[in-house]
């Protein structure tokens, strides 16, 4: 895959410079990565770009995206990203995110509900499981945690992205992502009690995409978002764990594309 044929790197500035991977045509889909990081223009980006103009910011604190020193939690992070969308002239769009990125997206939607025609939350963090057996990002090695996010960590799709030899840049991103995750989600662990109640303000359609075998945010978490969001539906991806967008990129992208088609934003 030749990256440069499919996407461009642009920089938006609102409250701080934000790097965005942009590719494709069609209605705008802003897609936020989570604690798995921004690991390039991956198959799920490419599939989504067949139907959407995909804008995938690199979260502040990672790579070229700068983290303002006053950011101390997800609401602050949401403000930085909303300001960057202002700068990019992104007025109406579909907003989505995965895991910690889903939590940030949900926060943004609760702040500016009219701005987003659709909301896509994939294995979203933001609520507590309260279960000692839920893998904890800060109590195990980073890539071991990531492996729990796959239905099958022995598969080539996991091994290719996470298990080979990796260089200092990849390790640097692991550390950057971990530090950002600690800033946003160390305590309380990956949740905010105000998130679900505030989501009641978001009455546009919402899609919850969940790996059927997600052990990091188990399916019961999806149910909570279903209850909290007035107009929401659930798409379950078979044979996938928490990171369904990486493990089953095709099925994941199909679910999002199908949702987008119903919104009539074309």
């Amino acid at each position, binding site marked *: 895959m030749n990256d440069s044929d499919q996407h461009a790197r642009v920089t938006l500035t609102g409250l701080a410079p934000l790097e965005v991977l942009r590719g494709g045509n069609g209605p705008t889909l802003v897609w936020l990565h989570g604690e798995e990081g921004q690991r390039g223009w991956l198959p799920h980006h490419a599939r989504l770009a067949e139907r959407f103009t995909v804008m995938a910011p690199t979260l502040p604190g990672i790579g070229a995206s700068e983290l303002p020193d006053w950011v101390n939690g997800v609401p602050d992070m949401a403000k930085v990203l909303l300001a960057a969308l202002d700068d990019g002239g992104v007025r109406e769009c579909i907003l989505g995110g995965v895991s910690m990125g889903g939590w940030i997206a949900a926060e943004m939607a609760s702040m500016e509900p009219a701005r987003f025609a659709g909301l896509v939350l994939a294995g979203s963090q933001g609520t507590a499981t309260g279960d000692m057996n839920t893998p904890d990002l800060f*109590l195990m*090695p980073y890539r*071991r945690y990531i492996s729990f996010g796959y239905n099958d960590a022995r598969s080539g799709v996991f091994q290719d992205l996470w298990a080979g030899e990796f260089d200092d840049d990849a390790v*640097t991103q692991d*550390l950057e992502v971990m530090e950002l995750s*600690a800033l946003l989600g160390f*305590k309380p662990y990956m949740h905010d009690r105000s998130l679900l109640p505030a989501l009641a303000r978001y009455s546009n359609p919402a899609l919850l995409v969940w790996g059927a075998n997600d052990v990091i945010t188990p399916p019961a978490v999806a149910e909570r978002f279903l209850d909290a969001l007035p107009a929401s539906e659930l798409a379950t991806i078979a044979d996938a764990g928490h990171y369904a967008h990486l493990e089953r990129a095709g099925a994941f992208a199909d679910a999002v594309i199908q949702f987008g088609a119903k919104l009539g934003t074309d």
Partner: protein
Amino acid sequence: MFQLHYFVNHPYLGYPHEAAAEFGAVMLKFSNRHFDGERAAELFERYHEEYVVAEQVGFDSIVVNEHHSAPAAMSPSPNIFATVLAKVTSRVKIFIAGNILPVNGNPVRLAEELALIDLFSKGRLISGFVRGGAVESLAMSVNTLHNREIFAEAHDLILKTWTEPGPFVWEGKHYHYRCVNPWALPMQKPHPQIMIPGSTSRETVEFAAERGYPYVALATRLEATDQLFADYNEIAEQAGHVPTPGHRGYFTRVHVAPTDEQALEEGREQFGGRVAQITSMVDMKIHPDVAAWMAPPGYVSREAAIARRRYMGGTPYAFFTQGYEKALETRQMIIGSPDTVVRQLNELRLRFGVGHLGVSHFAVEDYGRTRRNLELLGEEVFPRLRELAAED
């Protein structure tokens, strides 16, 4: 003046090592279902009695520390031990090495508690401040990302609480107080002596050296210790301080017996015992999460984390995995007859130019042995070490 310190770890002796070996770690998530309160109460009786013996045999201070969620040290609050020390001893300094500032969470209350210890003991407190091992922050759910910042801010606030008349307002990054004005302040003026224990983290050496606080190296490898004191001296001088032996300390593991042969034999058993207390390493396959408990996000700089990953050399259990002979050879343990121990401790004293030497005893089931070790140190080792130090 040359000073000798006695470091008490307060371990829990006698949990099932096979359970720990099966789990693969002896901290954080190793279940406390293996804890027995009656056993622990017995051990605390003994450790408190040991404080008295240590004072009698001539130590200048007794050192207590803070650890969480591990049988190797049942010491969640060193201030509680220090309070006991204030009442059962009358002469020795009470050296807290130290309170883990980022874990403590309320610097003003800590300043108050330390003031009481200083008052109860009529000015015998030495207050050490540490960042703590990363695992301590995890056990107490304190964000490791902010560890260094919190450490520095809490220190500044405690010092101000002790030295500037209240009430005052504190609006920092991590702490906010409308009215700092504790009534009970320390007896020592301008404030209790502060010493900074560490295990080679460059930032901690800088922190101590810049402020002219004595730095105590905790059983660090010898070459690393040479380097850290060279760094300390250079930084302290740049900051306008004149580093003396009193600014430098080295604590190590010591066991003494009437003959080398007996000491070495007992030492082997004690090394094995301490290994088991800390790691159950004997047959242990280390739990896959342990490496992350040592280096959570932000705890070390990115540069250091990358270097660590690149040169997988250092393991969390380097001391314990090297084996007994190697630990002796590298002087990570000082074990022998009084003659041998005097010679080896004096070599360390001269090598590092330290005015503080600390003895960390490996607690063993046989309390008689602990007492004999202490008595031999007091009768045969310390007088000669003090003479040698006085000759310099």
